[in-house]
């Protein structure tokens, strides 16, 4: 395999995590932090970056150790490794930005039970070499961050009329407060999921329309053959 082919497959893997297999919108994983912290675009971005960091570090480390971890205790081992990185992130955020730390609260520590991370580790990193695991984790992390950002910015724009704390609509805007409250989180994520389900459905139907004529021809041919055979 030439070098360019390897790079192409890596690129594909990266894009798969960002779009086709987007953890939040397509696989519907990791919804707890996604809803809880996305009251503003800034919080969403912080949470996304923290999760990406944990995802990349733990996937790479576990991929390096994959031949040494006994199968029977693998889940426990994974969780301990993930928890270690989460503790690290917890202290880093506390040191870098106290405002973000207070806004995210216990949800930074709850990254440890984010299904995306354990899912990636179990289904990909535990079976693949470190480079592939790293690329996959990076793709998923970016995909998750984009998802959180999409959620957070919609909720902040509708619920507070702001983006990144900058007012968008002037003084007369009446904020749609329910959007930053818990029900709004459910509604916005539900709508995003609906949008992606609709996209997937449309993509499924489009080749069918073109393939329709050929399918009819093929069907006609077989029935004619069957009829002749019967006769």
């Amino acid at each position, binding site marked *: 395999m030439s070098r360019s082919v390897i790079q192409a497959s890596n690129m594909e893997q990266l894009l798969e995590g960002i779009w086709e297999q987007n953890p939040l919108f397509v696989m519907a994983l990791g919804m707890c932090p996604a809803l809880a912290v996305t009251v503003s675009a800034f919080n969403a971005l912080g949470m996304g970056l923290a999760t990406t960091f944990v995802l990349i570090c733990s996937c790479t480390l576990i991929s390096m150790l994959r031949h040494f971890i006994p199968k029977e205790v693998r889940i*426990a081992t994974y969780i301990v490794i993930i928890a270690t990185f*989460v503790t690290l992130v917890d202290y880093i955020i506390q040191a870098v930005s106290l405002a973000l730390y207070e806004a995210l609260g216990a949800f930074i520590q*709850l990254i*440890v039970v984010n299904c995306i991370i354990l899912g990636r580790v179990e289904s990909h990193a535990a079976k693949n070499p470190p480079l592939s695991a790293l690329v996959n984790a990076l793709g998923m992390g970016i995909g998750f961050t984009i998802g959180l950002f999409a959620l957070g910015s919609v909720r902040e724009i509708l619920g507070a009329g702001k983006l990144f704390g900058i007012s968008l609509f002037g003084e007369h805007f009446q904020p749609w407060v329910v959007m930053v409250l*818990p029900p709004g989180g*459910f*509604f916005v994520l539900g709508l995003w999921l609906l949008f992606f*389900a609709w996209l997937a*459905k449309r993509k499924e139907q489009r080749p069918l329309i073109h393939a329709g004529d050929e399918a009819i021809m093929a069907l006609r041919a077989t029935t004619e053959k069957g009829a002749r055979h019967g006769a």
Partner: protein
Amino acid sequence: MEHETLGQIFIITMLSSNLVLAMFLGLCPFLGVSGKLETAVPMGIATSFVMLVASLCSYALNVLLTHFDLEFLRLIAYIAVIASAVQLVEMVMKKFSPALFRALGIFLPLITTNCAVLGIALFQTARGYDFTQSVAFSLGGGVGFSLALILMAGVRERLNLSNLPSVMHGTALSLMLAGLLSLAFMGFGGIGVAR
């Protein structure tokens, strides 16, 4: 937090700041197991039990860790405790009700990675609850989780009979429903002292 009585903690955790519908904890089992009432009820009970055990153990652990100045190990210790509690529930259930054990399937071991359980342990530490307060908190959390799960299962059972566009089926619709339930639970906000 001293002015909160035990009853207040219980009621607030159960209704107005319900773990699932107001704090967004434990959404995976909430969306995954809420398809049928008959699996929702035992799942709620099992999760509540794990919550209680995890809360008691993590209270004791926190005292121990603080005494030895090892707070940075808190997260890892909690997770280990919860994993063992889940293992316990799994063994008990396998022995006494194998049918139920099969019905819950993968979601039973997944209680380990249920954020509601870890959330209870972390929040009680963060808010500095004492022993009885922690018990009230975890009981309220468990009952609230079961309540949300059972309500959702009831709504979804009815919804199976209705006519909907096929794009709506699945998670998107469940989330919309959860949003409506969450709106309803916001009405309980007037009870007690909201945080």
